[in-house]
């Protein structure tokens, strides 16, 4: 059970303000959907949660402790693409995390110990429906199967939080629906805290227990860069009625339509 606190977070690149005044308290076992127009800093926010980037000001606490300065095992990640290792088979990809944890020097195990690790991977492979494709390389898998693999690979380390950066953005609609079911099921089973950046509002509402919208509140050309984006909508989703949900979605869609296509 993992809580995340974000305290007065600011981020700028060379004086260009991206994010400002982000404050959040995320309770354990939350599924936080993050939406917003392109360039609103939602991916930057996720990268800071991952320690891929450091905040300019403010801090992020996970279970009350400051984030380590680099990516670590407690935060798993699934990107839109390139999340899996192309030179390893499905099984080796999933076993990777366990192997590097045990074999500090060579990063891989041999013989019986390797087989034991491979056996440990079977449950999660079955859970994501890849047990029949263990010997295949990622290039031989469809996009949906690759993302299933990326999720399995991340979950085998039992991270405290899972960060998803548009994980289903490149998938066909039908496959996306399957992935949503899988994601919800894994979310319930693991008790994880999940942050997901997405462009798809429906997806954000369907999966999330909480919805965050990032947006710039000052949008005149001369103000962009001086003022960053911040959280403009923070909606707990489990308590909303379907009508509230529809209205909030419509509202966001209208806003998105009003934005320039940049």
């Amino acid at each position, binding site marked *: 059970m993992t809580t995340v606190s974000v305290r007065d977070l600011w981020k700028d690149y060379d004086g260009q303000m991206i994010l400002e005044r982000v404050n959040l308290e995320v309770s354990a076992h939350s599924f936080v959907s993050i939406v917003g127009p392109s360039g609103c800093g939602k991916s930057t926010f996720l990268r800071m949660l*991952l320690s*891929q980037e450091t905040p300019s000001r403010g801090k992020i606490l996970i279970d009350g402790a400051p984030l380590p300065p*680099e*990516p*670590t*095992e407690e*935060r*798993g*990640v699934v*990107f839109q*693409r*390139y*999340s*899996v*290792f*192309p*030179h*390893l088979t499905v099984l080796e990809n999933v076993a*990777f*995390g366990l*192997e*590097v*944890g045990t074999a*500090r*020097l*060579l*990063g*891989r195990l041999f013989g019986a110990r390797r087989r034991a690790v491979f056996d440990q991977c079977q449950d999660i492979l079955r859970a994501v429906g890849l047990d029949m494709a263990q010997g*295949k*390389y*990622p*290039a*031989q*898998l*469809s996009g949906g199967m690759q993302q299933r693999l*990326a999720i399995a*690979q*991340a979950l085998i*380390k039992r*991270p405290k939080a899972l960060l998803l950066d548009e994980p289903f953005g490149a998938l066909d609609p039908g496959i996306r629906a399957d992935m949503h079911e899988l994601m919800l099921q894994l979310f319930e089973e693991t008790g994880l805290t999940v942050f997901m950046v997405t462009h798809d509002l429906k997806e954000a509402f369907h999966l999330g227990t909480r919805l965050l919208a990032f947006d710039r509140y000052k949008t005149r050309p001369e103000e962009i860069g001086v003022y960053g984006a911040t959280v403009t909508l923070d909606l707990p989703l489990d308590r909303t009625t379907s009508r509230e949900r529809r209205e909030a979605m419509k509202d966001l869609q209208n806003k998105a339509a009003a934005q320039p296509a940049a």
Partner: protein
Amino acid sequence: MAKRLINRHPSRAGLIYFGLLPFLVLVLLYATGSTIRLAANPNDKLLPGFTSLVDAFVRLALAPDRRTGEILLWVDTAASLSRLGLGLAVSTALALVVGVANGLLPYVRAGLSPLVAVISMIPPMAILPILFIVFGLDELSKVVLIVIGVAPFLIRDLQARVEEMPREQLIKAQTLGASSWQIVLRVVLPQMLPRLIDSVRLSLGPAWLFLISAEAIAAEVGLGYRIFLMRRYLAMDVILPYVAWITLLAICSDYVLRLLTRKTFPWLDAGRGAP
């Protein structure tokens, strides 16, 4: 409907035919020129006939040399290939260590990248005299010339390949608990080896160039040495078969490296023919 030129492909037989055609034309041109010259002067040395080329090659490959008792072609080939092999092996090892370190470790990159960039701009042939002075006229200076000529290219190429690896992979490996060393060993190296072999294939040409230049200037044995020795006697019947032999060796080494990549890295071909 007539297709556009860019959409017209030769058949399998056509591919072989069009591939062989230029060679046939060249052979024919040579034969014609040789016949004309030999008709004018039977002792002409510039364009020897095919029989004398074959005779010379058989003599070099089978008969022991009168002075040394060794079979020249094999002695030369062994000497040249061992220099080339050693030079390329050292270059590849250097490229692997320095290239990966440069691509992956910011501190190493800060220290070594400018140096490698400058060294790669030095024309290797210009420092050949220095190499002869420093390393002597025997094997070492030739190997060093190949290393200086080839290694900087390999290092820079590998560094670029490491740097263009998707960031996502490195981040993912970190979130799975891999250390820097483990990332090198299990993520970067396995993916870089086939790339490195590819660049070694590309640098075979320059490596031969440096080898033959060095042998031409100072050597007692070697394919390049023999060619430049025979030049004094205008012995085209020896030079031409030697050039053909060197070309064959180069083609073979290229083929072997390509085969090695395909056999050793099955995942490279994995994507082909997949749904």
